[in-house]
């Protein structure tokens, strides 16, 4: 269970996050939606202990990320694509990530096969396409067989086959009792897979609820999204 409560983040005089709060529950896929610059990544960066909040909490089963021992075994995450140095191969990247959390070496080959990068495991990350980088980022998230997945814009750059694959992966993870939180600025891409929606605009949560709850009164999710975020087409 992910609990985000009254999160405030200021950058200079600008308030990036204004009392952001929501939960992501086990067994469900929670989609965190909003236009670019709405505060999705800022929220996830604080959740993963990368940035500091000015106020509020972001917790995994009641604990901040920084206090988790071998965090990758509890939370798998992806931010900013692959998160790998360009001159390293996918295999070497995952090998150091595995070592850092005492994850057995065999998991490297397993996750590479799972995300479809087995054939490109010895290629330098600099030669990867956006979609391949995303797959490598997801591979790193799966490495520690975590119960919780936090993915920032995972469908970004994936081809239609890749999008279908990631939807399946996230659905299966939640169906197996896992917690999935993913962010996206593409509502239609996540509508089919999400159980719960959290919509953010200008650093404020504008609505939360199941897909049916959020879209009621609107023609479809797209209509709801534009109406709620105040984006004019």
């Amino acid at each position, binding site marked *: 269970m992910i609990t985000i409560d009254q999160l405030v983040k200021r950058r200079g005089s600008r308030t990036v996050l204004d009392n952001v709060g929501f939960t992501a529950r086990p067994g469900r896929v929670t989609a965190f939606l909003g236009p670019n610059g709405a505060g999705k990544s800022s929220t996830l960066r604080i959740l993963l202990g990368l940035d500091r909040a000015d106020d509020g909490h972001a917790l995994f089963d009641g604990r901040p990320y920084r206090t988790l021992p071998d965090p990758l075994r509890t939370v798998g*995450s992806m931010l900013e*694509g*692959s998160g790998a140095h360009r001159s390293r191969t996918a295999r070497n990247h995952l090998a150091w990530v595995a070592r850092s959390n005492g994850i057995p070496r065999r998991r490297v080959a397993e996750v590479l096969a799972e995300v479809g990068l087995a054939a490109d495991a010895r290629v330098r990350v600099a030669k990867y*396409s956006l979609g391949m980088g995303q797959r490598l*980022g997801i591979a790193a998230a799966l490495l520690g067989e975590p119960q919780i997945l936090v993915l920032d814009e995972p469908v970004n750059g994936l081809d239609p086959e890749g999008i279908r694959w990631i939807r399946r992966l996230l659905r299966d993870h939640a169906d197996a009792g896992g917690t999935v939180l993913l962010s996206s600025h593409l509502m239609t891409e996540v509508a089919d897979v999400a159980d719960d929606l959290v919509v953010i605009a200008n650093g404020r949560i504008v609505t939360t609820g199941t897909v049916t709850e959020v879209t009621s009164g609107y023609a479809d999710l797209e209509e709801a999204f534009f109406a709620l975020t105040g984006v004019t087409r």
Partner: protein
Amino acid sequence: MNALKAELYKASTLPAVWAGFALTVVGCIALEVLLASQGDVTGTDSLPMGTVGAAVIGVVAFSSEYTANSADAGGGRQITTTLTTTPSKTRVLLTKALTIVILIVLSAVVAMPVAVGIARPDVPADELLTSCLGATLYWVLSGLLGFAITVVLRNGVIPLILLILNSSLVSVSLLLTKLTSLAYWLPDLAGRRLFGSGVRTVDSGLDAVPGGLVMAGWAVLLCLLAGFVFARRDA
């Protein structure tokens, strides 16, 4: 321990680290061969050359964390992964610094016996050993200085230019001594006599032990500053 294992593996799979390692080993050996062909050599006279490679190792081990992937590939940086695997920033810096020390000591173990072997100087073994240990300390401290500056700047270009220029082509510190004797207290000049009597150096300035302490003081101070800055800012 896992974090250290990860850092060692990370460094050993980074081509730029090997470039620094090769620069030290090949640089020292090649210079020693060149000097030996010109006349009397001491075996340790080529060792100041190794400072360049040591500085490169110190800088790239950390600047690589901030190298961005191309925008086409998401523009991500490795620091995000590093801090999600090891959320304690203190632990990240300590294991990184320890990795740099291990690699530089390793480069000294490879380069120094060969350089001394080429020269076969007529110098007592204990004096030779002291010079080699002093030179290793100078390299390690230079690497840590480069590391600390890189952490603060989040970029390796400026410390690389600064340290490579200063330790190979033109010593800015040495030029500054013409203006003020305070320049002898700058890290690179303060530690100069750590290389021992086999390396000719400036006539004035600090002796080996106080000089080494001053240089170590600089390294500690800058590493503390790096820790302070790194802990306080967002990744």
